[in-house]
C-alpha cells in the first residue's frame, strides 16, 4: 500500500518535473512582446531595444519592443500588469513604475496596478543623471551655479520630461540637498525638455547620460555634475554631487518584469536570459557607448531594492505635495 502511494507520488513528481522542464524547454515558441511604457527614442527605449536585440538571439525568438507611452509610464504599466501571464508579453520595468504608483497613492488615488502585480526578473542598467545647463552660460562649475541659485531663489527653472519622472525627481533631491528652490516646468517627454534647455527657455535640466552627453560633446550643453556617488565612465571629467559635498544621489534602473502569474519555469528562463544579456559584450557596448551604465540585479534583489526605494520616494512625495507641487 505504502509502496503504491510512493510510486504513484514519484510518478507524479517525475511527470511534473518533466513537463515543467519541457515547458521551459518549449518556451518561447513564438515572438515575445516587450511593452515599453515610455515614448520611443528616449534612453529607456534605447536600452530596451538593445536588450531585445541581444535577447532574441539567446531565446531564439524575435523580441519586439512595443511602445505604449502615456502618463509617465502608467499606461504601459497598466497594460503590462494585465497581460496574459504566459511569458509572451513582458514589461520594461523601470524606476518610473514604482514612482508612478507611489505618486498616485500619495495623492489619494488608487493606482491602476501595484508592484505586486509583477514578478521582477531583474535589472540590466542603472544610471545616475547629469545636471546640464546651456553651453554659453557663465557657470564654470556647480559651485557657481549654486551661488546663482541661492542669489535668486525660486526664479531659476528646470524642465523635465514629466511629473515625477526620471528628469524630475533627481532635480528635486538635489535641490533639497543643496537647500535651493527652483521652479519646475514639466514638458511632455525628455526630448522637449532637452530642447527647452538647449534653447535657453529654462536654466537647467537633469537627464540620463545617453540623452545629454551627445549634446555636451556637441557644445550645446554643459554638464555640471553627476547626481550620484561615482563618476561616469563616459564622462570622467564631470564631478559627482557627493564629491562636492551635496548629499544627493538617484539612480534610474531599467529592467524586466513579468505579470504575476507567469509560470516558474518561464520566469527562470527569463532570469537566465537576462543574466546572459547583461554579460554580453554587444549589449554592454550598446549601453555604455552612449554613456549609461550596465548594472545587474537579480529578481529578488530588485524586489528588495524597490521596497527600500518606495519608502524613500513616498517620503519625498509627501514633502513635495505639502509644498504644493501637485
Amino acid at each position, binding site marked *: 500500500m505504502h509502496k503504491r502511494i510512493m510510486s504513484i507520488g514519484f510518478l507524479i513528481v517525475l511527470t511534473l518535473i518533466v513537463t515543467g522542464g519541457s515547458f521551459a524547454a518549449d518556451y518561447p515558441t513564438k515572438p515575445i512582446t516587450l511593452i515599453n511604457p515610455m*515614448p*520611443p*527614442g*528616449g534612453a529607456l*527605449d*534605447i536600452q530596451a*531595444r*538593445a536588450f*531585445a*536585440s541581444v535577447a*532574441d538571439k539567446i531565446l531564439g525568438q*524575435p*523580441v*519586439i519592443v*512595443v*511602445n505604449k507611452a*502615456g*502618463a*509617465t509610464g*502608467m*499606461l504601459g504599466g*497598466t497594460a503590462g500588469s494585465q497581460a496574459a501571464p504566459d511569458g509572451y508579453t513582458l514589461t520594461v520595468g523601470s524606476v518610473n513604475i514604482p514612482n508612478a504608483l507611489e*505618486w*498616485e497613492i500619495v495623492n489619494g488615488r488608487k493606482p*491602476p496596478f501595484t508592484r505586486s502585480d509583477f514578478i521582477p526578473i531583474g535589472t540590466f542598467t542603472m544610471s545616475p543623471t547629469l545636471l546640464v545647463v546651456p553651453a554659453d552660460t557663465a557657470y564654470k562649475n556647480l559651485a557657481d551655479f549654486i551661488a546663482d541659485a541661492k542669489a535668486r531663489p525660486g526664479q531659476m*527653472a528646470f524642465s523635465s520630461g*514629466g*511629473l515625477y519622472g526620471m528628469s524630475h525627481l533627481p532635480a528635486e533631491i538635489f535641490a533639497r540637498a543643496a537647500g535651493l528652490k527652483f*521652479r*519646475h*516646468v*514639466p*514638458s*511632455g517627454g525628455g*526630448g*522637449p525638455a*532637452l*530642447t*527647452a534647455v*538647449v*534653447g535657453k*527657455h*529654462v536654466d537647467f535640466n537633469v537627464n540620463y547620460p545617453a540623452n545629454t552627453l*551627445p*549634446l555636451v*560633446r*556637441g*557644445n*550645446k550643453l554643459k554638464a555640471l555634475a553627476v547626481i550620484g556617488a561615482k563618476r561616469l565612465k563616459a564622462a570622467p571629467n564631470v564631478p559627482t554631487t557627493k564629491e562636492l559635498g551635496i548629499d544627493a544621489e538617484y539612480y534610474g534602473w531599467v529592467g524586466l518584469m513579468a505579470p504575476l502569474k507567469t509560470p516558474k519555469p518561464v520566469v527562470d528562463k527569463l532570469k537566465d536570459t537576462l543574466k546572459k544579456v547583461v554579460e554580453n559584450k554587444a549589449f554592454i557596448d*550598446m549601453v555604455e*557607448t*552612449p554613456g549609461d551604465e550596465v548594472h545587474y540585479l537579480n529578481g529578488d534583489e530588485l524586489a528588495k531594492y524597490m521596497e527600500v526605494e518606495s519608502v524613500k520616494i513616498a517620503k519625498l512625495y509627501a514633502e513635495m505635495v505639502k509644498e504644493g507641487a*501637485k
Partner: protein
Amino acid sequence: MDMLNNLLEGFRIALSLKNIYLCFIGCLWGTMVGVLPGIGPLAGIALLIPATFGMDATGAIIMLSGIYYGAMYGGSTTSILMNIPGESASVVTCIDGYQMTRKGRGGAALFIAAWGSWIGGTLGIIGLMFLAPFLANFAVKFGPPEMFAVLLIAFILLGSLGKGSFFKTVPMIFLGLLVGTIGMDPLTGAMRFTHGIKDLYDGIGFIPVAMGAFGIGEILTSTEESLVRAVHKVKLRELLPSREELRASWGPIIRGTGIGFFIGLLPGSAHVLSSFASYTVEKRLAKRPEEFGTGRIEGVAGPETANNAASQSAMIPFLGLGIPTGPATAVMMIALLIHGVRPGPLFISEQPQVFWSLVASMYIGNVILIILNLPLVGIFINLLRVPFRILFPLILLICLIGTYAVNSSTVELVILLTCGVMGYLFRKLEFDVAPFILAIIIGPTLENAFRWSLMRSAGSFAIFVHSPITAVLITLSGLLLIWNVYRTLRPKRDWERALEEE
C-alpha cells in the same frame, strides 16, 4: 565644394544595388502601409525594425526612411479617392481631393499630389543639405511660448478653412478642442472625461475620428443619394492633369514648399500645420476662393507639397541636435541607435558617410516613389470602377479593421461609428468637419504650450510677448483675428451675395 564631394560619396554608397533594393522595399512597404487606413508609418517602421538588426546602419536607415516617405505618399491616395485620410497630414487633402474624384478628376489629383510631393520633397532635401546646422539653431529658439503664438495663428487660420463662414467654423474648432482634452493630462496625470474607460486614458486618437467623420460620414451621405452610381468610364486622358490644372498647380507647389519647409522646423505636429497653412494661403490667394472645397487642384497641390517639404525639414532639428522632435523622428533615432549611430550635433561631422548616404537615399526614395505611384494611379482609379454597392461595405470593413488594428480596442470602434454618425450629421447641417478634426490633433499642443509658458513665467502673461518672435507672432494673430471678424461681418460683396442665392 566639400559638401558636393560628400554628397557624391553619399550617392555612390546609396546607389549600390543592395541599397537601392532596400530603398525600394521600404518605399513599397511604406506605400502599402500608407494606403491602408489605420496602420500608419510609425507602426510600419516599428514592425520592420527587428528585421533590420542584421543589416548595416546605412542600409537599415535607407529602408526605414523609404517606409516613412512611402507612407506619406500612400496616405494621400486614400484621401483623394475615398475621403479617408491615411494619416493626419492628409486630412486637408481630402477636402478638395475627394471632390475632384467625384468630378472624375481623381487621376489628375493623384498625379498632381505625387508630383507636388516630389518637388516639395526634393527641394526640401536641398534645403536640408545646405541649411541644416544653421536652421537647427533657429529651431531651438522656438520654445513653448513661441509655439503657443504659432498655434494661435494656426487656429485662427483654421477658422477660414471651411466652406462656411468664420463664425460657423469656430464652434467646430471649440468642439475639437474639447474632444482633444479627453484622456490623461500629461502635465498632472489627472484623468479628464474618461469615466473610468481604460481605452480613453490615452485620449481619442486621430484615426477613429478621421476615418469615422470623413470616411464613414461620406459613405452614409452617399448612400442616401443612391446606391447606383454612374460608372464613369475612365479614359487615359483623364488620368493626367489638364493643361490649366498643371499651370494652376505651379504657384501652390512653390508656395507650399516654402511654407512646408519653414513650418516643418517647428517642433510638434508640423505636417498637419503645414498642410492646412498651405491650404488657407492658397484659398486666400485664389481669385475665386468660394470654389475651394468643390474640387480645386490648388487645394491638393499646395498641401501635399507642403507636407512633404515639412517631413524633410522636420529632420533638421533631429539631425542637428539628436533630439527627436516627434514620434516619427523618434523611431528613426531608434533605428540609428540600434546600429550604433548616435545622432547629435556632431553626427554630420563624425559620421559623414551615414548622413550623406541618408540624404542621397532621400533623393532616390523620392524618385522611386514617383515612379511607383504614377502607374498606381491607374490601378487605383480602376479599383474605383467597382460598383459602389460592392465597394462601400468593403470600405466600411477596412475602416473597422484598420481602427481595431491600432489598439485592439472595441471602444475605438464605437468612437469610429459615433464619429461617422456625427460626420454625417454635420454634413447635413452644413458645418465643416475638417476644422473639428484638425483641432483635435493640435489642440493638446496648444494647451500644453500655454500651461508650460505660464508655469515658466510664474503666472505672468508677459512671457507671451517676451521674445521678439512671440511678440511678432502674437500681434499677427491679433491682426488676423480682427481681419477675419471684419470680413465676416461686413456687408457682402456682389459676387458673394450671388453665390449665396444659388
